[in-house]
Protein backbone atom coordinates (compact mmCIF):
# COMPACT_ATOMS: atom_id res chain seq x y z
CA UNK A 1 0.00 0.00 0.00
CA UNK A 2 2.78 2.43 0.98
CA UNK A 3 4.76 1.48 -2.14
CA UNK A 4 1.70 2.11 -4.29
CA UNK A 5 1.19 5.53 -2.69
CA UNK A 6 4.86 6.42 -3.24
CA UNK A 7 4.79 5.39 -6.92
CA UNK A 8 1.44 7.21 -7.43
CA UNK A 9 2.91 10.36 -5.89
CA UNK A 10 5.98 10.07 -8.16
CA UNK A 11 3.70 9.70 -11.19
CA UNK A 12 1.75 12.83 -10.17
CA UNK A 13 5.08 14.69 -9.91
CA UNK A 14 6.09 13.54 -13.41
CA UNK A 15 2.68 14.64 -14.74
CA UNK A 16 2.98 18.14 -13.23
CA UNK A 17 6.51 18.41 -14.64
CA UNK A 18 5.22 17.32 -18.06
CA UNK A 19 2.41 19.86 -17.82
CA UNK A 20 5.00 22.59 -17.11
CA UNK A 21 6.94 21.52 -20.24
CA UNK A 22 3.79 21.81 -22.36
CA UNK A 23 3.23 25.34 -21.02
CA UNK A 24 6.91 26.17 -21.64
CA UNK A 25 6.48 25.26 -25.31
CA UNK A 26 2.97 26.71 -25.82
CA UNK A 27 2.65 29.80 -23.61
CA UNK A 28 5.93 31.48 -24.64
CA UNK A 29 6.55 33.03 -21.22
CA UNK A 30 3.33 35.00 -21.24
CA UNK A 31 1.26 33.12 -18.67
CA UNK A 32 1.71 31.96 -15.08
CA UNK A 33 0.74 28.36 -15.93
CA UNK A 34 4.29 26.97 -16.20
CA UNK A 35 5.34 28.51 -12.86
CA UNK A 36 2.15 27.20 -11.25
CA UNK A 37 2.67 23.65 -12.58
CA UNK A 38 6.24 23.70 -11.25
CA UNK A 39 4.97 24.93 -7.87
CA UNK A 40 2.64 21.91 -7.78
CA UNK A 41 5.63 19.74 -8.67
CA UNK A 42 7.67 21.08 -5.76
CA UNK A 43 4.81 20.75 -3.24
CA UNK A 44 4.17 17.14 -4.34
CA UNK A 45 7.90 16.36 -4.07
CA UNK A 46 8.08 17.66 -0.50
CA UNK A 47 4.96 15.61 0.31
CA UNK A 48 6.60 12.52 -1.21
CA UNK A 49 9.70 13.00 0.91
CA UNK A 50 7.48 13.38 4.00
CA UNK A 51 5.51 10.28 2.95
CA UNK A 52 8.75 8.28 2.72
CA UNK A 53 9.77 9.37 6.20
CA UNK A 54 6.32 8.62 7.69
CA UNK A 55 6.14 5.22 5.95
CA UNK A 56 9.57 4.37 7.36
CA UNK A 57 8.61 5.61 10.85
CA UNK A 58 5.46 3.47 10.81
CA UNK A 59 7.51 0.49 9.68
CA UNK A 60 5.77 0.16 6.30
CA UNK A 61 9.00 0.37 4.30
CA UNK A 62 12.67 -0.11 5.07
CA UNK A 63 15.67 1.25 3.14
CA UNK A 64 18.09 -1.24 1.55
CA UNK A 65 20.75 -0.67 4.17
CA UNK A 66 20.13 0.18 7.82
Amino acid at each position, binding site marked *: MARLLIVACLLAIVLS*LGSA*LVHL*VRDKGESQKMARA*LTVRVVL*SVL*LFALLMVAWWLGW*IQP*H*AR
Partner: protein
Amino acid sequence: MANAPTSTASEKYYVPHGSPWPIIGSVSLFTTVGGGAMWLNHVHAGPWILTLGIALLVFMFVGWFGVVIRESEGRLYNAAVDRSFRMGMMWFIFSEVMFFAGFFGALLYARQFSVPWLGGEGTKLLTKVIRGDTFEATWPSNGPGHIGGEFRVIPAFGLPAINTAILLTSGMTITIAHHALKAGKRQVLNIFLAATFLLGFLFVYLQAHEYIEAYTTHNLKLSTGIYGSTFFPLTAFHGFHVTIGALMLLVVWFRCLKGHFTPTHHFAFEGVAWYWHFVDVVWLGLFIFVYWL
Protein backbone atom coordinates in the same frame (compact mmCIF):
# COMPACT_ATOMS: atom_id res chain seq x y z
CA MET B 1 26.33 37.87 -38.19
CA ALA B 2 26.15 41.22 -36.47
CA ASN B 3 25.24 42.89 -39.75
CA ALA B 4 21.59 41.85 -39.76
CA PRO B 5 19.42 44.94 -39.76
CA THR B 6 17.46 45.19 -36.52
CA SER B 7 14.62 47.09 -38.16
CA THR B 8 13.46 43.92 -39.95
CA ALA B 9 14.14 41.59 -37.01
CA SER B 10 10.52 41.15 -36.02
CA GLU B 11 9.47 40.27 -39.58
CA LYS B 12 12.16 37.85 -40.76
CA TYR B 13 13.46 34.63 -39.24
CA TYR B 14 16.94 35.65 -38.09
CA VAL B 15 19.70 33.52 -39.60
CA PRO B 16 23.31 34.29 -38.65
CA HIS B 17 25.78 34.61 -41.54
CA GLY B 18 29.27 33.20 -41.52
CA SER B 19 29.16 31.72 -38.03
CA PRO B 20 32.33 29.72 -37.18
CA TRP B 21 30.73 27.88 -34.24
CA PRO B 22 29.19 24.86 -36.02
CA ILE B 23 32.55 23.79 -37.51
CA ILE B 24 34.32 24.47 -34.18
CA GLY B 25 31.65 22.31 -32.51
CA SER B 26 32.20 19.49 -35.03
CA VAL B 27 35.99 19.61 -34.64
CA SER B 28 35.75 19.67 -30.83
CA LEU B 29 33.33 16.71 -30.74
CA PHE B 30 35.54 14.73 -33.14
CA THR B 31 38.62 15.52 -31.02
CA THR B 32 36.82 14.58 -27.79
CA VAL B 33 35.52 11.24 -29.07
CA GLY B 34 38.79 10.48 -30.90
CA GLY B 35 40.82 11.21 -27.74
CA GLY B 36 38.50 9.02 -25.67
CA ALA B 37 38.77 6.16 -28.17
CA MET B 38 42.58 6.48 -28.25
CA TRP B 39 42.70 6.42 -24.45
CA LEU B 40 40.61 3.24 -24.37
CA ASN B 41 43.05 1.72 -26.87
CA HIS B 42 46.05 2.64 -24.67
CA VAL B 43 47.42 5.35 -26.97
CA HIS B 44 49.60 7.60 -24.78
CA ALA B 45 48.34 10.84 -26.34
CA GLY B 46 44.71 9.78 -25.76
CA PRO B 47 44.08 11.65 -22.45
CA TRP B 48 45.75 14.82 -23.83
CA ILE B 49 43.67 14.76 -27.00
CA LEU B 50 40.53 14.15 -24.94
CA THR B 51 41.41 17.12 -22.70
CA LEU B 52 42.01 19.30 -25.75
CA GLY B 53 38.64 18.21 -27.17
CA ILE B 54 36.83 19.07 -23.94
CA ALA B 55 38.60 22.45 -23.76
CA LEU B 56 37.49 23.15 -27.36
CA LEU B 57 33.93 22.13 -26.43
CA VAL B 58 33.90 24.56 -23.49
CA PHE B 59 35.32 27.30 -25.78
CA MET B 60 32.59 26.55 -28.32
CA PHE B 61 29.79 26.63 -25.73
CA VAL B 62 31.00 29.91 -24.19
CA GLY B 63 31.47 31.52 -27.60
CA TRP B 64 28.29 30.28 -29.24
CA PHE B 65 26.02 30.92 -26.27
CA GLY B 66 27.61 34.37 -25.92
CA VAL B 67 26.63 35.16 -29.52
CA VAL B 68 23.08 33.86 -28.97
CA ILE B 69 22.70 35.94 -25.79
CA ARG B 70 23.88 39.09 -27.61
CA GLU B 71 21.54 38.37 -30.53
CA SER B 72 18.63 37.81 -28.12
CA GLU B 73 19.36 41.01 -26.18
CA GLY B 74 19.72 42.84 -29.50
CA ARG B 75 16.09 41.79 -30.17
CA LEU B 76 17.09 40.05 -33.40
CA TYR B 77 14.78 37.11 -32.72
CA ASN B 78 11.14 37.09 -33.73
CA ALA B 79 8.28 34.81 -32.59
CA ALA B 80 9.29 32.06 -35.04
CA VAL B 81 12.85 31.93 -33.62
CA ASP B 82 11.39 31.83 -30.11
CA ARG B 83 9.19 28.90 -31.17
CA SER B 84 12.18 27.03 -32.58
CA PHE B 85 14.08 27.48 -29.30
CA ARG B 86 11.12 26.03 -27.38
CA MET B 87 10.76 23.11 -29.79
CA GLY B 88 14.50 22.48 -29.46
CA MET B 89 14.14 22.41 -25.67
CA MET B 90 11.31 19.88 -25.95
CA TRP B 91 13.35 17.51 -28.15
CA PHE B 92 16.40 17.91 -25.94
CA ILE B 93 14.28 16.90 -22.94
CA PHE B 94 12.85 13.97 -24.91
CA SER B 95 16.41 12.69 -25.48
CA GLU B 96 17.20 13.21 -21.78
CA VAL B 97 14.11 11.24 -20.74
CA MET B 98 15.12 8.40 -23.08
CA PHE B 99 18.68 8.52 -21.69
CA PHE B 100 17.56 8.08 -18.09
CA ALA B 101 14.84 5.60 -19.11
CA GLY B 102 17.65 3.36 -20.39
CA PHE B 103 19.46 3.38 -17.05
CA PHE B 104 16.31 3.01 -14.94
CA GLY B 105 15.21 0.25 -17.35
CA ALA B 106 18.51 -1.59 -16.81
CA LEU B 107 18.04 -1.37 -13.03
CA LEU B 108 14.44 -2.59 -13.30
CA TYR B 109 15.39 -5.47 -15.61
CA ALA B 110 18.23 -6.59 -13.35
CA ARG B 111 16.16 -6.44 -10.18
CA GLN B 112 12.86 -7.79 -11.46
CA PHE B 113 14.01 -10.32 -14.06
CA SER B 114 17.65 -11.34 -14.47
CA VAL B 115 18.67 -11.63 -10.80
CA PRO B 116 15.48 -13.58 -9.83
CA TRP B 117 16.01 -15.88 -12.86
CA LEU B 118 19.59 -16.58 -11.74
CA GLY B 119 18.09 -17.48 -8.36
CA GLY B 120 15.85 -20.04 -10.07
CA GLU B 121 12.60 -18.14 -10.07
CA GLY B 122 9.79 -19.28 -12.35
CA THR B 123 10.70 -21.26 -15.44
CA LYS B 124 14.40 -20.56 -14.94
CA LEU B 125 14.73 -23.25 -12.27
CA LEU B 126 16.69 -25.42 -14.72
CA THR B 127 19.26 -22.64 -15.11
CA LYS B 128 19.93 -22.80 -11.39
CA VAL B 129 20.09 -26.62 -11.40
CA ILE B 130 22.56 -26.68 -14.32
CA ARG B 131 24.76 -24.04 -12.72
CA GLY B 132 24.61 -25.99 -9.47
CA ASP B 133 25.26 -23.10 -7.10
CA THR B 134 23.39 -21.92 -4.02
CA PHE B 135 22.74 -18.36 -5.23
CA GLU B 136 19.60 -16.91 -3.68
CA ALA B 137 18.11 -13.94 -5.50
CA THR B 138 18.13 -10.87 -3.28
CA TRP B 139 18.65 -7.16 -3.86
CA PRO B 140 21.16 -5.53 -3.45
CA SER B 141 23.31 -8.21 -5.06
CA ASN B 142 26.50 -8.49 -7.09
CA GLY B 143 25.22 -11.69 -8.70
CA PRO B 144 26.07 -15.39 -8.39
CA GLY B 145 29.76 -14.76 -9.15
CA HIS B 146 30.01 -12.30 -6.21
CA ILE B 147 31.97 -10.04 -8.54
CA GLY B 148 33.95 -7.49 -6.56
CA GLY B 149 33.54 -9.39 -3.28
CA GLU B 150 31.58 -8.47 -0.17
CA PHE B 151 30.18 -4.95 -0.19
CA ARG B 152 27.80 -2.72 1.72
CA VAL B 153 25.36 -0.31 0.14
CA ILE B 154 25.16 3.38 1.06
CA PRO B 155 22.45 3.82 3.72
CA ALA B 156 19.50 5.99 2.65
CA PHE B 157 19.65 7.92 5.92
CA GLY B 158 23.13 9.26 5.32
CA LEU B 159 24.21 11.58 2.54
CA PRO B 160 21.44 10.43 0.13
CA ALA B 161 18.68 11.77 2.44
CA ILE B 162 20.62 15.00 3.04
CA ASN B 163 21.16 15.39 -0.71
CA THR B 164 17.44 14.80 -1.33
CA ALA B 165 16.60 17.57 1.15
CA ILE B 166 19.17 19.84 -0.57
CA LEU B 167 17.70 19.26 -4.04
CA LEU B 168 14.13 19.69 -2.77
CA THR B 169 15.14 22.98 -1.16
CA SER B 170 16.76 24.07 -4.42
CA GLY B 171 13.47 23.17 -6.15
CA MET B 172 11.71 25.58 -3.80
CA THR B 173 14.28 28.37 -4.26
CA ILE B 174 14.13 28.17 -8.08
CA THR B 175 10.31 28.28 -7.89
CA ILE B 176 10.44 31.40 -5.69
CA ALA B 177 12.95 32.93 -8.16
CA HIS B 178 10.61 32.04 -11.07
CA HIS B 179 7.59 33.73 -9.45
CA ALA B 180 9.79 36.73 -8.55
CA LEU B 181 10.88 37.10 -12.19
CA LYS B 182 7.27 36.96 -13.37
CA ALA B 183 6.35 39.59 -10.75
CA GLY B 184 9.32 41.82 -11.64
CA LYS B 185 10.94 41.46 -8.18
CA ARG B 186 14.56 41.46 -9.31
CA GLN B 187 16.25 41.37 -5.91
CA VAL B 188 14.27 38.33 -4.78
CA LEU B 189 15.06 36.71 -8.14
CA ASN B 190 18.81 37.29 -7.76
CA ILE B 191 18.96 36.03 -4.16
CA PHE B 192 16.94 32.84 -4.70
CA LEU B 193 18.62 32.02 -8.00
CA ALA B 194 22.00 32.28 -6.26
CA ALA B 195 20.73 30.02 -3.47
CA THR B 196 19.65 27.47 -6.10
CA PHE B 197 23.00 27.06 -7.84
CA LEU B 198 24.87 27.09 -4.52
CA LEU B 199 22.66 24.23 -3.31
CA GLY B 200 23.35 22.47 -6.61
CA PHE B 201 27.11 22.68 -6.18
CA LEU B 202 26.74 21.55 -2.55
CA PHE B 203 24.84 18.48 -3.80
CA VAL B 204 27.69 17.60 -6.20
CA TYR B 205 30.29 18.08 -3.44
CA LEU B 206 28.40 15.73 -1.09
CA GLN B 207 27.89 13.22 -3.91
CA ALA B 208 31.66 13.13 -4.38
CA HIS B 209 32.00 12.41 -0.64
CA GLU B 210 29.48 9.59 -0.98
CA TYR B 211 31.57 8.02 -3.76
CA ILE B 212 34.76 8.28 -1.68
CA GLU B 213 32.92 6.60 1.20
CA ALA B 214 31.59 3.89 -1.12
CA TYR B 215 35.04 3.09 -2.53
CA THR B 216 37.04 3.31 0.70
CA THR B 217 34.77 1.92 3.43
CA HIS B 218 31.95 -0.01 1.69
CA ASN B 219 33.96 -1.79 -1.04
CA LEU B 220 31.20 -0.59 -3.37
CA LYS B 221 32.74 0.12 -6.77
CA LEU B 222 31.74 0.37 -10.41
CA SER B 223 33.07 -3.19 -10.73
CA THR B 224 30.84 -4.53 -7.89
CA GLY B 225 28.72 -6.81 -10.06
CA ILE B 226 25.26 -5.79 -11.19
CA TYR B 227 24.68 -3.48 -8.20
CA GLY B 228 27.84 -1.41 -8.79
CA SER B 229 27.30 -1.29 -12.54
CA THR B 230 23.77 0.09 -12.15
CA PHE B 231 24.33 2.27 -9.05
CA PHE B 232 27.32 4.27 -10.31
CA PRO B 233 26.17 5.05 -13.88
CA LEU B 234 22.73 6.14 -12.63
CA THR B 235 24.00 8.37 -9.82
CA ALA B 236 27.07 9.64 -11.70
CA PHE B 237 25.15 10.66 -14.84
CA HIS B 238 22.62 12.35 -12.57
CA GLY B 239 25.45 14.15 -10.75
CA PHE B 240 26.83 15.24 -14.14
CA HIS B 241 23.41 16.66 -15.02
CA VAL B 242 23.27 18.53 -11.70
CA THR B 243 26.72 20.00 -12.45
CA ILE B 244 25.64 21.13 -15.93
CA GLY B 245 22.35 22.48 -14.52
CA ALA B 246 24.13 24.42 -11.76
CA LEU B 247 26.54 25.92 -14.33
CA MET B 248 23.59 26.96 -16.52
CA LEU B 249 21.89 28.51 -13.47
CA LEU B 250 25.12 30.40 -12.74
CA VAL B 251 25.16 31.81 -16.30
CA VAL B 252 21.49 32.79 -16.02
CA TRP B 253 22.22 34.40 -12.64
CA PHE B 254 24.95 36.56 -14.19
CA ARG B 255 22.49 37.52 -16.92
CA CYS B 256 19.91 38.46 -14.26
CA LEU B 257 22.51 40.65 -12.53
CA LYS B 258 23.11 42.38 -15.88
CA GLY B 259 19.39 43.11 -16.13
CA HIS B 260 18.54 40.56 -18.82
CA PHE B 261 15.01 39.03 -19.01
CA THR B 262 11.59 40.60 -18.52
CA PRO B 263 8.44 39.09 -16.97
CA THR B 264 7.29 37.96 -20.45
CA HIS B 265 10.65 37.51 -22.26
CA HIS B 266 12.85 35.01 -20.41
CA PHE B 267 13.11 31.74 -22.32
CA ALA B 268 16.64 30.98 -21.08
CA PHE B 269 15.45 31.24 -17.48
CA GLU B 270 12.41 29.06 -18.19
CA GLY B 271 14.50 26.42 -19.97
CA VAL B 272 17.10 26.21 -17.19
CA ALA B 273 14.45 26.30 -14.44
CA TRP B 274 12.53 23.45 -16.06
CA TYR B 275 15.77 21.48 -16.52
CA TRP B 276 16.54 21.97 -12.83
CA HIS B 277 13.11 20.61 -11.86
CA PHE B 278 13.78 17.68 -14.19
CA VAL B 279 17.07 16.71 -12.52
CA ASP B 280 15.34 17.10 -9.16
CA VAL B 281 12.59 14.65 -10.19
CA VAL B 282 15.16 12.20 -11.60
CA TRP B 283 16.90 12.29 -8.22
CA LEU B 284 13.61 11.57 -6.44
CA GLY B 285 13.21 8.51 -8.69
CA LEU B 286 16.77 7.50 -7.90
CA PHE B 287 16.36 8.03 -4.17
CA ILE B 288 13.25 5.86 -4.14
CA PHE B 289 14.29 3.03 -6.46
CA VAL B 290 18.01 2.83 -5.61
CA TYR B 291 17.92 3.41 -1.86
CA TRP B 292 14.41 2.42 -0.72
CA LEU B 293 12.14 0.22 -2.81
